């Protein structure tokens, strides 16, 4: 009953004209970049982060979410028609999808992929609506030890789920941790690896790393490869609707793919790509006709396509309920929340029900829009592939550059820092409600990890009441001339595996029991930033 009520609230938010528009925009942009190889949802979301300043938080997040799941639809279109996966998550769709297209069954393959994705999207959205609230309740009682354990789990999962050499996976995690160390040490206030560059004292920004690793990295890889030949399927798509035989074989695969994708999406390091690969392996193994795989087996399209959409959507669950990004896209989504001064985590559902349920409802609507608009638009998307990559990469390069610049440096960057200030100040005020902050206030900076359990001991409320003093203290310090303090990037992360790394390193340090003073200094730093900004204006 409560679920229905919540969903009613959500649809009330998602069905306003503005939010419908942004869901549609996000889904369309997502499909577009899904179709285009060489640009993925990560780089796109990073590029569009500055744009979300100017939107309502809910609208911005609806749009960014739309980009992510829209890309899953778009990626399959080119995989089937041109044997060119637009996204890594649709690589396996190429195997059987393109074979189907060659046999003249392109329409059926596209329809199975779209309908399977739609079904998976509906189911996984229902899963979010059903399981997120209880999970958030559990999350609310989490203190530092629990978060620490989750980080360890995330790091281990990142190693286990990595393809290829385990040693290299561990080495990359260590490398990511090292990147996370750049900037000011929350413990001592000393700076590390900054080369005397002021900009680096704040650490490496998440959008910067995401664009560097995924945006620029992809451009370089694509340029390295010889000019690809894009053999379009010349045959006109005549029959869109799959045959009864296709349906009968596809629906169990869709069910299996949805189930598998939903589970793998929740795991740290999981998400769309892993789900698709796992689903293809599962289909091949469980099929009675494994020899048909690779020659246009409809299960080989239905399973992975459902799985990647399910995985893309359920990966929102840990982000929305615990504030932990399972993959790089979720790390960027956290960045988007932070821009608006919202801390993703267990409290989001109780504090901003409209936003949470609006997002969930918009996923339903977005999926429906994608099915309806995409099938007729397939021809247009394929035409887009004719834009030569040598023009495309210049545009991507430029927008990446401007995107990073605006997020971290310009007036928008000032707004970003102001947002962070508001965010930290709000957290201070909310100290009594936030178990992690309560734990922090308990020990006045001289802390041992044990004190993280403090919130469970009596008398903590009295101490929590001390919280506002911190703000006062930093305000005094500011009036007194304010030494450069240090800032932590709580709630923000470094993408992908590195996201987990960065968070493992940075989040517990900042939010848990270790440094009350660190937080005061934060506010100080942000307040200083804001003052500078005002003076500059």
């Amino acid at each position, binding site marked *: 009953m409560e679920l229905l009520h919540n969903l009613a609230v959500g649809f009330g938010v998602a069905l306003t004209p503005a939010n419908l528009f942004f869901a549609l925009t996000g889904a369309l942009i997502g499909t577009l970049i899904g179709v285009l190889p060489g640009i993925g949802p990560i780089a796109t979301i990073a590029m569009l982060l500055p744009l979300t300043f100017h939107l309502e938080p809910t609208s911005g997040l609806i749009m960014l979410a739309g980009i992510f799941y829209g890309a899953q639809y778009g990626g399959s279109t080119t995989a089937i028609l041109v044997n060119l996966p637009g996204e890594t998550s649709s690589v396996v769709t190429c195997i059987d999808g393109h074979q189907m297209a060659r046999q003249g069954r392109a329409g059926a393959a596209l329809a199975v992929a779209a309908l399977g994705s739609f079904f998976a999207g509906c189911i996984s959205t229902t899963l979010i609506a059903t399981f997120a609230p209880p999970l958030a309740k559990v999350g609310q009682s989490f203190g530092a030890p629990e978060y620490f354990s989750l980080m360890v789990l995330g790091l281990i999962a990142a190693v286990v789920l990595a393809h290829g050499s385990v040693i290299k996976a561990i080495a990359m995690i*260590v*490398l990511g941790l*090292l990147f996370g*160390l750049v900037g000011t040490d929350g413990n001592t206030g000393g700076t590390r690896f900054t080369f005397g560059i002021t900009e680096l004292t704040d650490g490496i920004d998440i959008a910067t790393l995401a664009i560097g690793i995924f945006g620029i990295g992809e451009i370089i890889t694509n340029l390295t490869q010889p000019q690809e030949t894009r053999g379009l399927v010349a045959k006109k798509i005549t029959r869109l609707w799959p045959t009864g035989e296709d349906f009968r074989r596809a629906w169990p695969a869709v069910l299996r793919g949805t189930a598998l994708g939903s589970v793998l999406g929740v795991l740290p390091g999981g998400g769309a790509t892993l789900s698709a690969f796992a689903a293809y392996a599962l289909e091949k193994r469980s099929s009675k006709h494994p020899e048909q795989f690779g020659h246009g087996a409809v299960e080989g399209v239905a399973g992975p396509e459902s799985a990647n959409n399910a995985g893309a959507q359920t990966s929102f669950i840990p982000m929305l309920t615990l504030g932990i990004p399972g993959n790089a896209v979720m790390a960027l989504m956290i960045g988007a929340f932070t821009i608006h001064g919202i801390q993703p985590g267990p409290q989001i559902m109780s504090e901003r029900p409209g936003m949470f349920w609006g997002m969930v409802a918009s996923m339903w609507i977005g999926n429906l829009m994608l099915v309806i608009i995409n099938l007729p638009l397939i021809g247009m998307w394929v035409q887009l592939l004719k834009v030569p990559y040598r*023009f495309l990469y210049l*545009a991507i390069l430029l927008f990446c*550059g401007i995107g990073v*610049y605006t997020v971290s*440096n310009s007036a928008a960057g000032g707004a970003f820092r102001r947002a962070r200030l508001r965010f930290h100040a709000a957290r201070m005020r909310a100290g009594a409600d936030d178990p992690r902050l309560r734990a922090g206030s308990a020990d006045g900076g001289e802390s041992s990890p044990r004190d993280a359990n403090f919130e469970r001991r009596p008398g903590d409320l009295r101490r929590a009441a001390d919280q506002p003093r911190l703000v006062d203290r930093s305000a005094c310090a500011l009036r007194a001339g304010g030494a450069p303090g240090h800032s932590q990037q709580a709630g923000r992360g470094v993408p992908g595996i590195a996201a987990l790394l960065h968070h493992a390193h940075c989040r517990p340090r900042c939010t848990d029991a270790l440094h009350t003073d660190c937080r005061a200094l934060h506010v100080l730093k942000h307040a200083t930033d804001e003052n500078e900004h005002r003076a500059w204006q």
Partner: protein
Amino acid sequence: MSLGEGQNNLPNPFWRMLARRDVLAGLLFIGVATLGLWLSRDYPIGTALRMGTGYVPRLLCWILLGLGAVVVVQGLREAQDVRPLSSADFSALRPLVFVTASLVIFGLSIERLGLVISILLLIGVGAVAARALRPLETLAAALVLIVLSWGIFILGLGLTIPVWPEW
């Protein structure tokens, strides 16, 4: 970076041994770890109970150093069945160098020289990365992109990026 660069036909067995995927990856890890250790040489270490600024970085660098060494050894031992790097792999350095350079130049110039000139620089240097681009095409692409980004970011979003050089 200097490892194997330009060693197109790799005549020397020593170079051939180094120019293997895993060996290079391991050497990269070792290089980063060494750099990290060198940079953090003056950071106070402290104790495990009261960690100094240098405690975690140095710990991580030593771990990375060890892992890098393992990867190198693995690469040397298993290299017989792995395809060694060919000269084509080294031509990949061209986009790597020019794409990176174009972004660095863009970052350095945008506040001083303004949007228009820094876009021209970005496109000019970036276009070198792909061999297929003709000069006239590049110029046309640059003009379109200047108009587009001016329209979106300055007019549309109202970002305060200088458009022309600020003297």
